[in-house]
């Protein structure tokens, strides 16, 4: 019998008992739908993480003074004092595997423009900042080394700040006041969106590092709150971390046994860690889905066993008119595969639908991957082969006369 005949026969038999077929494939439907939805959700989460990490800048390395507590440093303001401007100069001189290095000190300020005002974070940093963070201006220009040298009171606004102070007006060449010091707006940064920690990165104002030291830093003018470095490329970022660690330890006269009094974070590692979390979630959810596929397969096996018993006479008739046992095996196997592939197809559709509804209802990003759908469909077919084999073999091993006499 050719495949077409077999498929037609299988479809006819299945369509005779639609309710049973639907109930039988329900397990497969749920299993496949779960796989599709979970993978879509996992892929969406991963894309989110990747996007957020990319928003920080490629090959980014973050140097933070104090111990390893990031949150402590951020909130502390003046408490961590271990990295200073001389350290930054030394790093710039001695570490070959970084291309740029930008110290960034920040302060919570009230910024005033005409009769509008807005509380935001001002960052004093060098022009390298724009490169390292891969954060360029949409409108106007970035501040230059000339501005640094001349202590020019210019500023570049984040998108949020520009919108709060100037609305839809053009802010370029307008004046704002930070701590009573007038600054000329020379540019507006492009939008970065949320940081991986959920902060609005666009709620900031960038001013030259030299001006920050002079006008805002007060007594802590030599200290560095955070510095951003860009490695040559992704492969050299670990080497850069090691080199910088060595330089800083030497400058800080740390003994062999002492802990670092600073911390250097490699974004590639952070990305890997986040990806690992997302991967293990996907794996976990995927195995739950796998279990339901297994249960679905057992459902198919059960139905096929019942079907073989019910149709013993039919098998006997087929054997009597010359069917080989292989013909019977293939017939029932095709039936099982058609059943489970049918369930798989419905499952793919339901999974796609669930992913979309989740997206609409919760705003979670879901990514429907056709190759995953194809794989899930193939696996459901394989489930049919695997769980259909035993019932089909039982059918094929029937003796013609016993099968014919079966009541």
């Amino acid at each position: 019998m050719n495949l077409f005949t077999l498929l037609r026969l299988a479809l006819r038999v299945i369509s005779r008992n639609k309710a049973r077929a639907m109930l039988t494939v329900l397990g497969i439907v749920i299993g496949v739908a779960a796989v599709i939805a979970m993978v879509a959700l996992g892929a969406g989460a991963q894309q989110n993480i990747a996007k957020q990490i990319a928003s920080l800048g490629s090959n980014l390395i973050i140097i933070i003074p104090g111990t390893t507590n990031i949150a402590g440093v951020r909130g502390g303001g003046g408490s961590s004092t271990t990295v200073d401007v001389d350290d930054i100069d030394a790093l710039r001189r001695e570490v070959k595997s970084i291309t740029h290095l930008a110290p960034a000190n920040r302060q919570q300020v009230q910024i005033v423009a005409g009769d509008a005002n807005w509380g935001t974070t001002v960052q004093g940093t060098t022009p390298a900042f724009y490169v390292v963070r891969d954060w360029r201006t949409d409108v106007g220009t970035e501040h230059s080394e000339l501005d640094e040298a001349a202590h020019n009171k210019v500023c570049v606004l984040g998108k949020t700040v520009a919108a709060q102070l100037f609305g839809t007006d053009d802010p370029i060449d307008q004046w704002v006041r930070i701590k009573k010091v007038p600054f000329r707006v020379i540019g507006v940064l492009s939008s970065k969106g949320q940081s991986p920690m959920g902060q609005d990165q666009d709620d900031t104002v960038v001013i030259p590092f030299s001006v920050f030291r002079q006008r805002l830093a007060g007594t802590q003018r030599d200290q560095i709150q955070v510095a951003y470095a860009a490695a040559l490329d992704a492969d050299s970022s670990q080497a850069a971390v090691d080199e910088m660690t060595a330089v800083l330890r030497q400058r800080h006269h740390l003994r062999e046994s002492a802990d670092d009094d600073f911390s250097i974070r490699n974004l590639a590692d952070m990305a890997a860690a986040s990806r690992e979390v997302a991967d293990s979630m996907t794996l976990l959810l995927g195995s739950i889905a796998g279990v339901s596929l297994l249960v679905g397969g057992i459902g198919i096996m059960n139905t096929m066993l019942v079907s073989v018993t019910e149709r013993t006479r039919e098998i006997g008739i087929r054997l009597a008119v010359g069917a080989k046992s292989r013909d019977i095996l293939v017939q029932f196997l095709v039936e099982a595969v058609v059943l489970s592939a049918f369930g798989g197809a419905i499952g793919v559709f339901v999974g796609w639908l669930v992913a979309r509804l989740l997206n609409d209802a919760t705003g979670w990003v879901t990514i429907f991957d056709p190759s995953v759908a194809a794989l899930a469909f193939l696996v459901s077919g394989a489930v049919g082969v695997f769980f259909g084999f035993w019932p089909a073999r039982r059918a094929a091993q029937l003796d013609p006369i016993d099968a014919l006499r079966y009541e």
Partner: protein
Amino acid sequence: MSQVPVIDAENLQKVYGAGGTPVVALDHVTLQVHQGEFVAVVGASGSGKSTFMNLIGLLDRPTGGALRLDGVDVAKLTPNQRAAVRNRKVGFVFQGFNLLRRTSALENVELPLLYAGVSAHERAEAAKRALTQVGLGERMGHMPNELSGGQQQRVAIARALVNQPALLLADEPTGNLDSTTTREILKLFVDLNVNHGITVVIVTHENDVAAVSRRVVQFKDGRVVMDGPPPAEWTPAVPAPWHAASTTPASEVA
């Protein structure tokens, strides 16, 4: 009759129940049927006549003795070869018709061709020919449950004939049919035997059915107790060409 017999059973034996008390269904049966014969196998129920039919139809396996079909020792056949013999050499007609439910008459008749690997087009052509031959050309699309018993049995006969076997085995083919339908079916068998040269072996417990045949083999307790022309006192249900040639035509006795 010097050719190789169509059926050549030698000390054929079938014993059921290997575990407890064995039941001997067939006890050293030796029998030959030649090309073109019309044989009736008779006997009480449990005499072993159906067992014998199942053995020569390769639906069942003997526990002893030898069976040759067209000179081929069936004990030496692989399961696939046995299936091929069932498919091509033997047509089997059952008392209970054994048609596939919810499957049209045409598709039922096509079934042996399906397993013979015949293309869809040729299958349909051959099945239509066979159905026309048994007088059911008009009802090919009907399901078995839409047909009368006699029509269902015709479908079953068409199915048995569609692969043009040399041997037609019928196990109580008229057992479920009324006398009018019985006569129609028997006429069909006579026609197949006389005009198409098909060897017919028919199991029955009705004397008038057996009397249609040229040769009656009677089974009792698993043995052949009689083998010869039908007894003169049996009235054939339908006439056959050989009745006229007989010294005491059955019709005259009636």
